[in-house]
Structure formats: C-alpha cells, structure tokens
C-alpha cells in the first residue's frame, strides 16, 4: 500500500494530471493572428512595390533592398549601430557600479530595487519629454553651473545628438541595472573575501571572481538595451528635434510622410536581420567568454 502511494506520487510529479494543453490555444491564435501574421505581411511588403499613392503590387522583387544600398542609408545604419553600441556601453558603465552597490552593500534592497523599477515602468514619453525642460538653456541647473564657471551662457544642448544620447542612457539604464543586479545578488561574496585573504588584490579578485559571475547578467542587460536601441524612435524625435535620422525614424517617415510602405517594410526587415545576427554573435561570444575567459 505504502509503495503504491509512493509510486503514485512519483508518477504524479513526473507527469501527473495537469491543466490541458488546449488552454494555450486562445493565446496561440492571438499571437499568430496579430503578431506573426503582421510580421509575415510586412516581409511580403518588403519585396513588393508601391503603385500610385497608396496601393501596393506584390511583385516579389528586391528593388526596395537595392534602393537601400546607398551611402545615405548606409550612414543612417552606421549611426544607429553607433547609438546602440555606445548606449549599451554607457548604461553598462553607469549601471554596473550601481547594481554592485545594491547587491553587495545595499541596506534596503527591496526599496532600492523598487526605486529602479518605478521610473522604468512609468511613461516612456513623459520621461523623455521631461529632458526638454532640463536641457533647456533657461533651466536653473545651467545657471548654477554657469555661476561656478562650469557652463557658458548658451549651453545649447537641446535638439543635438548629445541630447539624444543623454535621453537614451536615461531611458535604458534600468534595463541594464536589473539583470546585472539579479546576477550579482546570487553571488557568494565569501569567495571574494577568500581570494583576497589568499593574496589577491581587490582589483584582481574582482576580475577573477565577480566579473565572470556577473557575466550572464551583463549579457542579458546588454541585449535588453541593444535590441530596442536599434529601433529607437522617440528620443531622436523629441530630444534630437527630428534633425538626426536613425533607422527607427527612417521607418517611421516611410509610414507617416513618404507613404512608401514597402520601402519602410524593407528597412524594418534589415533592422530585424541585423538584430538577429548581432544577438547570435553576441551570445556566442559571451558563452565562449564564460567558458574560457575570466
């Protein structure tokens, strides 16, 4: 009897009664119809041609992609790549010490973490446009900086590339801090102490123990920042004054002003393709680093 109950329990744990798989069907239908299907139509659009003002002929040619091979667009893509790379590195440089502090020394970790999450979950648009006020020459901060000689009469940051970068770092910082913190939080700090007791300098202990253990978090954070940055739209429009065009803005223009949807779809396809390549390369590099580096 007891044996029977035990085997029964084991069976239940392995593959006992459970909720039926058809419960996944409604969401599957929603995903397929409103996510996969639109992306597929967009892919089809990218090899189609605009006819007249707004109709489209599905004639399966690569003309949109050929049009993209142009130094003008090449420059836009390079600029976007630079924004995404610099943005990722900057959020890492600013975010890592913060995550380290919270994980190792933070007193009220829950509160400190909530304080990181709250800005991230509040309106993206509002947090972005707030910088319009802060970067304005008349903002009191610049008067204060000017009084101590750190800023000139005309700072002129608004609607510049620098403004876009400030906005970008600000927007994506929480996305870097959270995964790095999650990785550091699981760490056993006595390892670091042991290494130092055995004669490692703090820097060496950091490089040999903390960094390799934090790597999964750094990888996750970098992807979370890099991916949306490749399609960044709002920061350049609001803080850059729509003067400097990035890939996301180029896509937006095709749909809002030029009304060349097939061409816009082709740009979006290129963004997705380069993202896929970047993610694959990066995760491979990171895996190798985790195996052999450190």
């Amino acid at each position, binding site marked *: 009897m007891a044996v029977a109950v035990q085997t029964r329990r084991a069976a*239940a744990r392995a*593959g*006992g*009664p*459970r*909720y*039926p*798989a058809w*419960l*996944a069907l409604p*969401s*599957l239908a*929603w*995903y397929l119809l*409103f*996510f996969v*299907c*639109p992306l597929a*139509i*967009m892919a089809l*659009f990218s090899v189609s041609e605009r006819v007249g003002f707004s109709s489209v002929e599905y004639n399966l040619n690569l003309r949109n992609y050929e049009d993209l091979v142009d130094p003008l667009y090449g420059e836009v893509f390079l600029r976007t790549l630079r924004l995404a790379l610099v943005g990722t590195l900057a959020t890492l440089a600013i975010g890592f*010490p*913060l995550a380290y*502090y*919270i994980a190792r*020394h933070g007193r009220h970790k829950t509160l*400190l973490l*909530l*304080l990181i*999450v*709250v*800005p991230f*979950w*509040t*309106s*993206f648009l*509002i*947090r972005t*446009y*707030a910088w*319009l*006020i802060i970067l*304005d020459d*008349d*903002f009191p901060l610049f008067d204060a900086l000017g009084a101590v000689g750190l800023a000139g009469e005309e700072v002129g940051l608004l609607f510049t590339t620098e403004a876009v970068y400030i906005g970008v770092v*600000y927007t994506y910082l929480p996305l870097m801090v959270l995964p790095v913190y999650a990785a550091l939080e699981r760490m056993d700090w006595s390892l670091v102490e042991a290494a130092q007791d055995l004669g490692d300098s*703090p820097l060496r202990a950091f490089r040999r123990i903390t960094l390799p253990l934090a790597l999964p978090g750094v990888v996750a954070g970098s992807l*979370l920042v890099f*991916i*949306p940055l*490749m*399609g*960044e*739209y709002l920061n350049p429009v609001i803080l850059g004054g729509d003067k400097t065009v990035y890939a*996301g803005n180029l896509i*937006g223009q095709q*749909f809002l002003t030029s009304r060349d*949807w097939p061409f816009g*779809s082709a740009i979006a396809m290129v*963004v997705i393709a380069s993202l896929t390549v970047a993610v694959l390369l990066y995760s491979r590099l990171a895996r190798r680093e985790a195996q052999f580096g450190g």
Partner: protein
Amino acid sequence: MARRVLGGYALLVYGFLYLPIVVVVVYAFNAGRQVLNWEGVSTRWFGEALSDPTITEPLRNSILIGLGNAVVACVLGTALALALSRMRPLFRVPFDALAYMTLVTPEIVFGISALIFFVQIGVPLGVKTILISHVVFNTSVVMLIVRARFVGMGQTIEEASFDLGAGPWATFRQATLPRLAPAILAGGLLAFTFSFDDFITSFFVAGAGTTTLPLRIFSSLRFGVSPVVNATAVLILALTLVAIVTAYMVLRRTERGRPELG
C-alpha cells in the same frame, strides 16, 4: 571607504533617475504660463487639463483601452501560463520564444507591421486596433508573472483535485484561482500601465480619428512644453505609480507568505 564612494555614486545615479520625474511634477504646479518662468505655486493647470475635452476624451480612451486590454490579457495570459507550466519542453520552448519575441521586438517594427496588417484586412483603425495590439505583448507579461507564481507554489493541490475527478474549470476555481489571484491581479495592473503608457504602437495603429493620452501629449509637444502638458503628465504619472506600487506590493506580499521558497 570603497563602500562610501559607491554609496555616494548610487545616490547620484538615483538623482539622475528621478530628476526628470521631479522636474515635471514641480513645474506642473507653476502658476505662470511659461514653463520655466516660476511665478508661484498653483493647481490651476490641473483644473484646465481636466476641463479640456481634447484631454478628457483621450483620457477616457486610454482608460478604456487599458482596462479592456488588461482583462483580455489576464484571461489569455493566465490560461497560457497554466497550459505551459508543465508542458513538455518540445512544445513549451517555441511558445516561450514567441512570448519573449512579442516583448523584445522593437516597438516600431511591431507598430508598422500591425498597421499594414489592419489596413490590408480592412479593419478600421481606432480604439479596437489599439486594444488588439496592446493585448499581444501584455498577454506575454501576464503569462510570465502568473507562471512564475504558479510554478513556485507547487501543484499537489491541483493534482489531488484532478485525481478526485474535478475538471479543469472546477479545479481552477477551487484550487488554483484563490492562490493565484494576487499574481493575476499584479499582471493585470502591469498590463494596464503598459497599455496606458504606450506611445509607439498606439501611434501607428490609432488612425486619424482616435487619440490616447500619450498621443495627445506628443502632438502638443510640437508647440513646446506647456504647463497644461505637465499637469496632464502628472495625472498619468500618479495613475501609473499607484498601479505599479500596488502590483509590486501584492507580489511582494504573496512571496513573503511562501516560506517554502524563502
């Protein structure tokens, strides 16, 4: 020593994170018509925002879309979480990939593809198309939160219920829902805020006649920041802050009442 320096640094970064939010809130109470020209404290701009139909109408739309989206995303996301929790990896992994993709695809790509789709199949753009698009990524949000809780709390009660002959619906109502309710509520609150705050997706699938609150703010930014815009922004911030902190507290509390996971 190093700890002190790091602490000071952390304080600085927190200042950086909150500066924009504080600035918007403070200047929303500026009595003057010029944003940066301080003329004393006043709440007049809140009154003006709330009596302006070009703000209250989008506010109504945003709340309706946010609530409808939260309800649909909760139903879909919870059902998906239950189905996936013990599905074989062969079937589960593609589902997971799909769910994560809805969250990481750059929003502009999702926005334009949804726009093309709705126009091609002839669905008129408006409140309905915004709601449908928001449900896509919010279903994934709810699923991730609910599944984490469902997997964490162990399923012996569910197994007993099934063993004793109860169907999925009876089991859900009697065994699962009471314990899962906080996670579903938290997921729903987050789904609401993500929808309420969404700009890019809504921007592309709203069509000409429909405006949500973020779209309204964006269009008035063309004429620069104004005190009314700041007041509207503070209203949005207040609403989402309440939702976020509630969601966070609900999740924290259920986690603390779960000693087996520490």
